[in-house]
């Protein structure tokens, strides 16, 4: 039982942070790092709870939008190239996901948005994913004397397995409270010392 309690506590104290290469979920924001610059990454699917934002992985197939919002204003003066290639494997969930593979960059992309400037600081990518699969996204930003590449593997059509992350903490709290209640119910009541007459 102690193991369960420890696991629940660790679950509660861990801050939500994970990454697929250049895309990482920090707190409640999904961010894409390209060199020293940062963008917000948002995925939307019209036929799958349209207002909901996804962070890299898109749980269903169909019409999808990926929006990159530039947090660093300097990116507005740089060109941004977005390309996606097909992959045989899913994201590893390790730092290797972020390593740029030259051979991938030479491949003909599954789809590509050619390099151009985005003065509004927002880049919208629309894509119809007809079948599920694994992909690798590349974001290449280029300024006058600098060029940075970010790689992020993602999947389409694979719903998140297990408990949704938003429910993990409430469930952990509930389990801990139940365990504590059971623990105290089975113990004998504590009595105060009574005054002795002698």
């Amino acid at each position, binding site marked *: 039982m102690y193991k369960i309690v420890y696991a629940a506590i660790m679950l*509660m104290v861990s801050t939500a942070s994970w990454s697929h290469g250049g895309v990482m979920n920090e707190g409640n924001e999904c961010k894409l790092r390209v060199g020293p610059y940062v963008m917000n990454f948002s995925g939307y699917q019209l036929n799958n709870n349209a207002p909901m934002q996804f962070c890299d992985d898109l749980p269903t197939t169909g019409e999808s939008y990926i929006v990159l919002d*530039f947090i660093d204003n300097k990116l507005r003066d740089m060109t941004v190239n977005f390309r996606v290639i097909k992959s045989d494997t899913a994201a590893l969930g390790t730092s290797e996901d972020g390593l740029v593979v030259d051979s991938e960059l030479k491949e003909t992309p599954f789809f590509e948005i050619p390099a151009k400037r985005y*003065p509004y600081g927002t880049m919208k990518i629309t894509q119809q994913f007809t079948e599920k699969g694994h992909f690798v996204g590349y974001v290449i930003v280029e300024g006058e004397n600098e060029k940075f590449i970010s790689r992020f593997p993602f999947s389409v059509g694979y719903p998140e397995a297990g408990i949704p992350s938003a429910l993990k903490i409430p469930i952990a709290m509930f389990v801990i409270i139940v365990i504590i209640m059971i623990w105290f119910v089975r113990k004998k009541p504590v009595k105060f*010392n009574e005054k002795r007459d002698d």
Partner: protein
Amino acid sequence: MLNIKKTILMLIALMVACIALYAAPAMAHGEKSQAAYLRMRTLLWYDVEVSTVKLEVNEELTMTGKFYWFYDWPNNIAKPEVAFLNIGIPGPVFVRKASYINGVSGTNSTRFDIGETYEFKVILKARRPARIHMHALMNVKEAGPLIGPGRWVEVTGNQADFTNEITTLTGETIDLETYGLENAVKWHIFWGVIAAAWLLYWIFQGPILIPRYKKVKLLNEDADDMISPTDRMVGLVMLIGTFVVVTWSYFNAYQEFPITIPLQSGQITIPALPDAARGVTAEVVDARYRVPGRALEYTLKVTNNTNSPIKLGEYTAANIRWMNPEVSVALPADSHDPVASNGLSYEGGAVMPGETKLLKVTCTDAAWETYRLAKLIYDPDSRFGGLVMFFDEEGNRSVIAIGGPLIPVFI
């Protein structure tokens, strides 16, 4: 049987521990962390400027600007019955020398009228070297701080050179940076020693905390026997001593400083500025937020009662500015100044004198997402607000507050 008290205490302790351990690092800088509706529908700041962004210790900086109390004030936010103009700075990098609202001293708290515009000026004196992001700030009682635009300011020099001299009513010149400091330290040490002695005395008088509680429970009606005649004498000496010291210090201070004025805690009422709309009216007919496009689109019904054609040059909300460069040009003052220099476009052209016209306005920029204004669409009351600014051919400006329900669209 369940021990309710102990269980509740355990649960509280566990929850406190979890919350303390779970506390993630703060990501936001403050201005983004407030709810979108709060930033768009309470206090709308504009024309905020600082006189300089680089100065030395002892030099002065003036922040000026205007603010408008939004007419469609959220029901759940306290109205500005008591408000105080302030400046948000991380740490005492500056001291405030003076502040004015519509030319009236802003030393006291003020009551403001919803739907009215005021201008402000705050004079600050650099105290210590730092590079800081400073904001205009309005503290509203029961509503909290309403943050204005921020500016990066750098103070150089040496804090040791800082002086903050004033002349008192009696003509004495004093430096507020050091005035009375020695006296304050002396009194803090004095009362600290007294408090420590009192605490230590009782720590060494038998059991403390839980053992003492248990002993009190055990002795029941005879628990007072735990306090000895010596304890009572020490308590009496401390009580009388405290009264004597406080009374003596009061009369001593009065003798040393016979001419004083009480701390001013009154409230003042300041008349608002004349209507900034200058005869132009505008109301939102419909509004949509294009989610993947990061664009607010609204139809404005505009009536021009001035003598000159007017064009839409700017929309501002939540300290973010969307500019129409064909009419009004503004560039970001620094790396964190959210100005969409070409973020505003509209169909409909100029509104002629006496004409009423529908304008289709689009405000596009990543700021909707990066400044978390798009969160508005997840609110149960998705209403937006802001100021639109029209300009005539001579550059005269009309500022009008607009707002209304917002519908999200995804295509």
